[in-house]
């Protein structure tokens, strides 16, 4: 049977002239620029508004906001030393943010990355001791795999609950984080405890051979490179492959996706599992590069900071890289600010909270400004 679209009813347009084509091209370029600019200007503006609000908070404490920002610059970005500190702190944020950004493309707000980080780290730390003596080139991938599988199962379960039982993924992932931390504490203090760890219950320490070292010539571990590469891969997955496109359809409208015959269950659970695998990998790196064993220090809040990074980056994996470094710098400066300004440690958390609220609020402005929205400037009436 013939192509329906080419049957009658169709109208043929005359081919446009060269000048007309040029005008169309210019118009298209202008539109594209406007739409791209919106994606940069609004988040940056939100960041500035957040900082301004935070200044008021600092001023209310009778401290100088200027001094605060100056110290933040010095502690996070001002010197090579402090910038390396920022990069080191950005490393886990990259993967933690992906744990939020990937499900977000399906329209899911998963905030339980912390749980997947903790359990991924525990799995990686637990699998290493029995493999003692095996070459690191085999053990490190095995540890990464263990962390990713456990993290993937954890957040994959959130996706499965959401798809088959209609359990709200935000609530379930948050609550499952508490379970994850409790589970880790139980195992670290019980079956997996290193008898030698007295004050701070931990798993058996990793052999030095199984630790992830710093990048050559830097004081930043390899986690930064791994995180950046995974972010790139996630961007390719979402923007360039059919699975990413299908996931965006599911996120745009589940009913439309069903009508297209897309495997909604597999996409939902698969993307959640992938997100959990990213967080699990972050946990493995945290164990292998920083802690050296699994213990309570793993629940350091990277999973929560990752939420902020993902939202600031508007769930775009490429934007996650610079945003994570920015937030890494903010965290790196915390100690310096605390010492110099006599501010409580939680001040940086307040800053993160204010930035988060400003970012969420800015979501309501997309498409509202004529300068950024060709649909508005083209509307005639």
């Amino acid at each position, binding site marked *: *049977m*013939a192509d329906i*679209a080419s049957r*009658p009813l169709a109208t043929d347009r005359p081919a446009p002239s060269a000048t007309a084509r040029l005008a169309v091209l210019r118009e298209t370029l202008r539109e594209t620029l406007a739409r791209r600019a919106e994606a940069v200007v609004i988040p940056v503006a939100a960041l500035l508004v957040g900082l301004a609000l935070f200044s008021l908070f600092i001023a209310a404490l009778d401290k100088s906001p200027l001094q605060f920002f100056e110290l933040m610059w010095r502690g996070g970005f001002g010197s090579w030393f402090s910038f390396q500190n920022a990069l080191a702190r950005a490393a886990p944020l990259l993967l933690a943010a992906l744990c939020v950004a990937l499900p977000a493309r399906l329209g899911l707000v998963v905030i339980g990355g912390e749980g997947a980080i903790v359990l991924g780290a525990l799995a990686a730390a637990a699998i290493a001791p029995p493999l003692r003596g095996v070459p690191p080139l085999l053990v490190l991938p095995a540890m990464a795999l263990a962390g990713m599988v456990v993290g993937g199962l954890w957040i994959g379960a959130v996706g499965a609950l959401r798809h088959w039982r209609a359990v709200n993924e935000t609530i379930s992932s948050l609550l499952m984080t508490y379970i994850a931390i409790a589970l880790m504490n139980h195992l670290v203090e019980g079956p997996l405890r290193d008898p030698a760890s007295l004050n701070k219950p931990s798993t058996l320490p990793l052999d030095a051979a199984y630790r992830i070292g710093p990048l050559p010539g830097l004081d930043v571990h390899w986690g930064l490179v791994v995180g950046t590469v995974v972010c790139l891969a996630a961007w390719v997955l979402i923007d360039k492959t059919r699975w990413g496109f299908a996931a965006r359809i599911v996120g745009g409208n589940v*009913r439309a996706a069903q009508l297209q*015959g897309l*495997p909604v269950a597999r996409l939902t659970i698969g993307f959640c599992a992938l997100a959990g695998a990213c967080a699990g990998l972050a946990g493995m790196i945290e164990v292998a590069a920083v802690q050296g064993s699994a213990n309570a220090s793993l629940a350091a809040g990277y999973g929560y900071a990752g939420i902020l990074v993902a939202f600031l980056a508007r769930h775009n994996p490429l934007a996650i890289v610079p945003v994570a470094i920015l937030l890494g710098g903010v965290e790196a400066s915390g100690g310096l600010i605390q010492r110099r300004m006599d501010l409580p440690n939680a001040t940086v958390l307040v800053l993160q909270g204010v930035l988060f609220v400003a970012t969420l609020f800015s979501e309501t402005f997309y498409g509202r400004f004529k300068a950024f929205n060709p649909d508005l400037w083209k509307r005639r009436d």
Partner: protein
Amino acid sequence: MSAIGPSATGKAIAVETIGMTMRFGTFTALDDVSMKVSAGSFHALLGENGAGKSTLVKCMMGFNHPTEGALLVNNREVTVADPNDAAEHGLGMVYQHFTLVPSLTGAENLVISRRNVPRVIDWARERKALAAFMTTMPFDLPLDVPVRDLAAGEKQKLEIVKQLYLDRRFLVLDEPTSVLTPTEAHEVLGLVRQMTLAGDLTVLMISHKFHEVTAFADAFTVLRKGRFTGSGKVGEHDARSMAAMMIGDQPVATLASRTPLVADAPTVLAVRGLEASDRTGLKTIAIDHVEVHAGEIVGIAGISGNGQKEFTEVLGGQRARRAGDIRVKGKPYGATRRETQELAVRFIPEEPLRNACAPRMTVAENIAFRTFDLDAGGRRISWISVAAMKARAAELVAQFKVKAASLASPLQSLSGGNVQRAVLARELSGEVDLLIVANPCFGLDFSAVAEIRARLMTARNGGTAVLLISEDLDELLELSDRILVMSDGRIVHETPIATASVQTIGEYMAGHH
């Protein structure tokens, strides 16, 4: 108004428009229309889709501000700046679609619709006042039941009662019977007619159903392309002369003529013993046997909420089935992507923006939903090509005349008609062996409706099997080769179009079988 309902005697008001003109930019939607609706009359406003009926009514109700012209209420000129002003003058409107809150009872709906609801509502007192008010109404309605449990006819009556409760004595009824069965329509219009005869109410009814106009209205006004083309008393004109005023000298736009049915055309869709839960989960829809052959349109009629929606959802993979067998071209069909692509199954669901599109994705992306994972030769690909997507979208947008600012605009920035055109462009391009369509013309303008119906007929003539689920009986009668009636989750009647009788279909729709 007071908490106690108005007394209902001799309160009908007269309304008149003089030289009403409405321009949108260079487009004149309404051109110098004068219409007189005398107090206590049941006046019909006739015209094709797009003739300007809605624009005229919106000007009267304060939704539109006429470019020129005046509105007279009881022979006094009034200015209506917004719908609140219209309400002050006693002008009210009952929309085609229900505006009641489904989870609240009738009584609650009535009380909260008042403009001066007290902060604390004394329900005992309100109930007493309502009971007193209802004794003045010819309608008998259960006011203590949540509105979602009312039948469509009861909801329509409640909408009318609400307007009267708010003391509006000039009512515009916008195609009031489009969601009712013929019996319900007859009852509601009869009661409204009684009230106008008693002088309690003036009614202006927008309709294109001549049989309603001749049975209930006493006067009519006809518009065509925004202009007044005639008026008169109903008894003095027959349907033919009214149709002439509506359509003018031009021939009626007709569908691509229907090619004769092919004898023993292959069965494309075969449904047997299908069972699924309805949306409440309490009832079951059970389709014993439905077949659609190549080159025919099978229409499914039924009042909204009798399982048609669930049936469409099962076919579209949006609802799980409990039992039964669905085959397309003899192969089992479970609505997976591979099956829809290999068996060439397409869908045009109702409310396309809600059911068939991702509103925030771009026009080009939405048009690519069927083909993003295939290359030009129809083979599965892993890497999508944005350039190919855009090129194809540009072609289809031109071919289906979709008006969009650009291909990169979010789909939700398009008008309803253009969203539907974009969906048609996507679903009707390429090979289509089975097309499942639900209420495709809901809420669309005249040109879009005509085009969609023509495309469905063209597809049918080309050999596509079309299953058309619609709540618009006229649409079904116009397009279908066979009509099935669905009631209470079951197919209760089947008739070829040649022997179809509106009355019989209506009885089956209403569950009298």
